[in-house]
């Protein structure tokens, strides 16, 4: 970019160009921003994205539905189960599969745990970027606990590939239930401690309050969604606006902010974690009231048979291969389904032509849409505020670049 000539009110004659990223420890991901600086003030900025573009939408056109789940893991890898289940629910909606209530509650537990994990990363990293490392270390213990729960549920931690079309591959085992219960008991103390470290911390407040505020009008014009939109005072949450997975049965509130600054984004995410915890508690009770042992819908055409049966019975082996190879009937349709992801409305626009792979699959990735406002909100501010603003947007490189 060309240097910008500065007026008499500046000590400098012209701006200095600074490459912030693509690999910079303060950006927490592969983002490049070319900044034109007048001292420490950002005069203009330009974002370059796409450094980890992996052509997921193109690959998805060549894969049967099950093999798309691992692609969704790698969008927002901080809350992979939400992506997995969002995709499975899209396919279920397409196929008209009704999931049993117990499956819905199990899914809600997994999704709300991942929302907590996602928000923990974001909020503690806001702390790190403003110079408060301690909170980050404290809450990562709890994030570890969540990953251990995922490990019990599906066998993996970060990119979970959790669940099946119609439900889960297996029931939550006793260890998983015990770990969830332990988490419910222990998390409030850690969360309270985290809030005590930050919410009334003078330095943190000075760094966050009034920094990069965004009005509700601007947030809507930029198609922001999720905690960012809510921090600007708009109470749009897909879980309430268009309930999926039995969310309508749950009692929870949508926290909203007023000014849309970094502090509001931080507080909204914190409160959402409390709400998620309450949802998990409710879901666990509801789940235990349901008949035991139901963990997927009766859809043998789409739900992989248990592994033991695949090794011992012919029919299961046939079904296993049919499903893996995508030799199952898929209607010709066009569908948009969205779920409330960690960063906002995560949408799946799926067009099928009756073939084994989608004709077209488009992911509405909240990070991609939220991040385009970054240059706008960083402009005019100090470079240190821009760093903090970026972590408060919680841009996940995988979701940004697809």
């Amino acid at each position, binding site marked *: 970019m060309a240097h910008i000539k500065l007026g008499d009110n500046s000590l400098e004659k012209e701006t200095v160009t600074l490459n912030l990223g693509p690999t910079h420890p303060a950006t927490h991901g592969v983002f490049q921003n070319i900044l034109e600086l007048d001292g420490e003030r950002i005069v203009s900025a330009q974002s370059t994205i796409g450094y980890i573009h992996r052509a997921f939408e193109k690959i998805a056109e060549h894969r049967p539905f099950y093999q798309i789940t691992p692609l969704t893991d790698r969008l927002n890898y901080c809350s992979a189960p939400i992506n997995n289940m969002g995709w499975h629910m899209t396919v279920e909606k397409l196929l008209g599969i009704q999931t049993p209530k117990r499956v819905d509650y199990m899914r809600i537990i997994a999704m709300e745990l991942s929302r907590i994990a996602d928000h923990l990363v974001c909020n503690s990293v806001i702390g790190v970027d403003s110079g408060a490392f301690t909170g980050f270390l404290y809450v990562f213990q709890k994030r570890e606990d969540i990953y251990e729960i995922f490990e019990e549920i599906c066998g993996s931690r970060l990119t979970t590939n959790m669940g099946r079309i119609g439900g889960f591959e297996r029931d939550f085992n006793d260890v998983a239930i015990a770990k969830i219960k332990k988490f419910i008991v222990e998390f409030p103390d850690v969360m309270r401690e985290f809030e005590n470290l930050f919410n009334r911390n003078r330095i943190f407040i000075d760094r966050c309050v009034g920094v990069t505020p965004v009005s509700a009008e601007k947030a809507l014009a*930029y*198609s922001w969604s999720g905690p960012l939109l809510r921090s600007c005072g708009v109470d749009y949450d897909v879980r309430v606006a268009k309930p999926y997975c039995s969310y309508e049965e749950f009692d929870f509130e949508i926290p909203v902010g007023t000014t849309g600054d970094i502090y509001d984004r931080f507080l909204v995410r914190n409160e959402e974690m409390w709400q998620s915890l309450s949802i998990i508690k409710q879901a666990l009770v509801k789940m235990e009231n349901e008949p035991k042992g139901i963990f997927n819908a009766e859809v043998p055409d789409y739900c992989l048979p248990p592994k033991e049966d695949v090794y011992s019975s012919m029919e299961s082996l046939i079904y296993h291969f049919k499903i893996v*190879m995508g030799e199952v009937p898929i209607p010709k*349709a066009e569908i948009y389904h969205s779920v409330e992801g960690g960063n906002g409305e995560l949408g799946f626009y799926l067009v099928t032509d009756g073939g084994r792979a989608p004709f077209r699959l488009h992911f509405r990735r909240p990070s*991609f849409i939220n991040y385009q406002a970054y240059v706008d909100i960083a402009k005019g501010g100090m470079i240190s505020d821009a760093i903090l603003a970026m972590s408060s947007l919680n841009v996940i490189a995988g979701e940004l670049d*697809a």
Partner: protein
Amino acid sequence: MAEVKEMNNQAVLDKLQFKFADAIFNVSEPFDLLTITTSKDKVIEIIQFLYDNEELKFRFLTDICGVHYPDQELPLGVVYHLHSLTNNIRVRIKVFLPESAPRIQTLTGVFLGANWMERETYDFFGIIFEGHPDLRRILNVDDMVAFPMRKEFPLEDPNRTDKNDDYFGR
């Protein structure tokens, strides 16, 4: 206070058909989502109307994406998803363009957020949004010449001999 009428797909469609009678074709409701097709000359006007209308208030742009139907007369589709947060109702608007001149007006005048969505659509489908402030590639490298989400673009190098996916039908 005026009586609040429950807004549904039919009410939205009635309003649209009243205003743009000859520009709305192929109305359908797949999975309860009102879907209409329109022409490239009318689409921005229709979206602006949906945005401005005090009863409809479609003021949230959910998504813009492209679709390539190589067998159609007008193969390149642009799909807009709009959401009225106040009425909690969505609408999908489709426009189809010829491959020879895939040009359409930009939506950035109505929604700031259309900026990157249109850049992405341009990047992958080569659809040119006229009047866009900064229409460059966004996820692919700048010197790429192809538009990779078009159906004729192969997923893998067609000259590869070490891998045969024929049995997998893809």
